[in-house]
């Protein structure tokens, strides 16, 4: 019975974080929200009697993949702001990342 309540709470958090990951304006916040989805999913795996999967998800889903996303975001942003005028081939206006 306790586990049922905990899993419902975890589900609410996961769904809210998925919504933030899709709809927030800032990419930074969206990436953090994706990491939080992975973190709480790992707690859910622990409740579902799968400690192996929980360990993997906690290390990979919320740690490594977030850091790889951050590296890419940093690369893209620094490309854009280096001289303010990154040339595109067809001359289109750049959209916000």
């Amino acid at each position, binding site marked *: 019975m306790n586990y049922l309540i905990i899993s419902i709470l975890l589900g609410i958090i996961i769904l809210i974080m998925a919504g933030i990951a899709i709809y927030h304006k800032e990419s930074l916040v969206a990436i953090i929200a994706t990491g939080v989805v992975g973190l709480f999913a790992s707690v859910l795996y622990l409740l579902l009697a799968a400690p192996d999967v929980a360990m993997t998800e906690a290390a990979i889903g919320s*740690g490594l993949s977030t850091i790889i996303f951050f590296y890419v975001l940093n690369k893209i942003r620094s490309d854009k702001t280096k001289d303010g005028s990154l040339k595109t081939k067809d001359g289109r206006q750049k959209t916000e990342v």
Partner: protein
Amino acid sequence: MRNSFILILIVAFGIMLYGLFDAFSGNEQLSELAKYYAQKENIEKVQAANLVTAVVVTYRGLDTLGEVTILFLTAAIIGFFLHNKEEKRFLRENSEIFITAAKLLIPIIILLGVYIFINGHLTPGGGFQGGAVIASAVILMILAFPEREFNSKFFTYLESASGTIFVLLAALGAIIGSGFLDNAIVPMGTFGKLVSAGVIPIIYSFVGLKVGSELSNILGNFKAVQSDN
């Protein structure tokens, strides 16, 4: 207009998934295959206390081999795509506290990863988890000492060597044992001790080293592409 079409598609997909949800009525007992794996004589034959490890390394070891191959392919393609000379970057000096703590923590984290994959057949954990932990130690190293060059050659050699040893051990089972990935080619030991389960801990350790070095290589490639900002 376009979004409403996609919405209809998603709703249709959701109805399909609801059908799956409706047909599911909770497991009361194991499936037949899992019963076979959990039988006493089969457990005693394989001797791994962690049944997930037994499934990953012996029963479905060929899957693991393919998985490691896919990981190697992705690491190789990423290295091919992002390969460029590391630019000169101007970095702010890390604080003294962080550098000292990183020096203290990196060996401990690597030791934890090694512990996790050596004990993979007894406790929760194994090669994949240990590899991920080792890769997070490498991340800490990259963040704490960004001016040092990332030594990707070492990780490449480590990864190739452990992959080769994995395949050789598996093939040795086919030659002197009863089949590919047979784990009874070395003395079995006693159930529940560190030295047990035949070749499982050895193979899983090499899988751990391979996964750890592949993930580290991916991270190093993403680090090398950073530029000044």
